[in-house]
């Protein structure tokens, strides 16, 4: 075994050691990450069964099911930013308050500001822009004019 080969082997050894250390380090980090999150999560501190918990127990996998382009649990349209909207816009009020409205980006922003100033909505930080983009894309105004046609009339025979 020459010096060169010995050196190569040492390098190999160090390499393997480093790899093992790295894997170990990642594992520790992962465990730490989840443990800390677990501890930080208020739902885990209190062994009370919240409505959220009840809601998802039966079909945990279906929590964020999308059907025909609609997020079933909330009724939101599927699209980029959907989960940010679900997380930030449905803890105080119903998703229905969002989905029944149609606004321009400017008006959605004004609504967010109003909620921040008067309704205890938190700072949305970097999520604000994607939330606004989602809302102004999927919940943009329709041009309904001054009076729309009567739509969705259910015809029936009038018996008297």
């Amino acid at each position: 075994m020459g010096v060169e080969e010995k050196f190569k082997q040492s390098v190999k050894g160090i390499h393997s050691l480093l790899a093992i250390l790295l894997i170990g380090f990642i594992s520790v980090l992962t465990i730490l990450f989840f443990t800390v999150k677990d501890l930080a999560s208020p739902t885990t501190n209190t062994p009370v069964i919240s409505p959220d918990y009840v809601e998802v127990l039966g079909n945990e996998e279906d929590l964020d099911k999308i059907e025909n382009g609609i997020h079933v649990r909330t009724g939101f349209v599927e699209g980029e930013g959907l989960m940010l909207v679900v997380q930030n816009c449905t803890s105080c009020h119903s998703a229905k308050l969002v989905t029944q409205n149609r606004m321009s980006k400017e008006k959605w922003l004004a609504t967010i500001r109003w909620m921040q100033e008067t309704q205890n909505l938190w700072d949305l930080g970097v999520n604000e822009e994607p939330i606004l983009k989602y809302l102004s894309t999927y919940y943009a105004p329709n041009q309904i004019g001054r009076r729309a046609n009567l739509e969705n009339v259910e015809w029936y025979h009038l018996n008297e």
Partner: protein
Amino acid sequence: MERRKFITRSSLATLTGILGMDIVFGNLLPDKYIPLELQETDPLKLFGLNKEMQVLNDKPWNIEAQAHLLDDKVTPNTAMFIRNNGKIPEAIDVNTWTLTFDGESINQKKTYTLSELKTKFKHYTYQLTLECGGNGRSEFNPPAKGNQWTIGAVSSAKWTGIRLKDILAEVGIKSDAVYIGYHAADTHLSGDPSKEPISRGVPIAKALQEETILAFQMNGEDIPVVHGYPLRLIAGGYPASASGKWLQRISVRNKIHDGEKMTGSSYKVPRNPVAPGTTVKEEDMRIIESMPVKSLITYPKSGATFNLNKQLTIRGHAWAGELNVSKVAYSIDFGSTWSSCDLEKEVNRFAWQHFSAKIKFPQKGYYEVWIKATDRDGRSQPMLVPGWNPKGYLNNACHRIAVKVV
């Protein structure tokens, strides 16, 4: 999404850890632990409503009627729209419930128990029309934010209670009184106990009207919880938000009440007309008082098909805020010609009036029956959506139904 799932999983793990149970048992738990109000998942059943009522919002609860559900002369509980701003109070104990009078313009702060209110003052019953200021909001263009009411945020039930003027006479108010503001037991959606969901009121002159009552009954029974049990202020003809539910305190103010939803743009319209989409400054807005003239065809339901030889009977109600209605007319040709309807007088001030007509159609085809009421001051409903305003209030455009003659 992942985070939420993770929380769910971890709380399940924590729970099973604490209880020392297998995860299978976790699946059996919910039945016993679901809070009472969640056991009935159908809100229409929960509130005893007709199954055709329309849920606009479930947090907070906002539910409206459809025109044909409002056919009764006196609106039954099953067809009463629900407009809540916050969470319904949870623990209501009528034995400890009190109403306090305070404010700058009161001689002395005074508190009454519910039974004192019921026994010390004379009872009155009135049929009073309550319409949400935002009824019809869904038609504004550009759209206005908020619950997108179509036509069903109106009711005319019988309310029983005591006159506010009687109790104010006993409490004693100062000559500088301008407004009364209510405070109630509902709680803010954010859970912040320092915030009131809504605290509106009426000018002192409205407060002293005979029909302005503190009600404890609706249609002869205790007011349903969702409508303000055990005590509700009723101020007919004004936006229904002036009729505060779950009443605990009335402040007699020496200025316009500045509670939640009295300020900013809430329940206000521009002083001067504005173009659609205009941003209006707060100081350029005025508080809505009397609601405008309006009517609804409650029979037949839109979509009726019938033979040419048949005469169609239509009927419905008309109201005009603090005024009354002097004329109702229908048109089957988009307003080219109008024919008068029979119109009944109101049973008391601020109750809606009933109209009816029989219509003969000239030929087969698609028609719309449009209805138009005129108040005693000569103002009629517009056929188009009226003046745009930032929050989408006061849409009193003519109601219409579609019919087919075959």
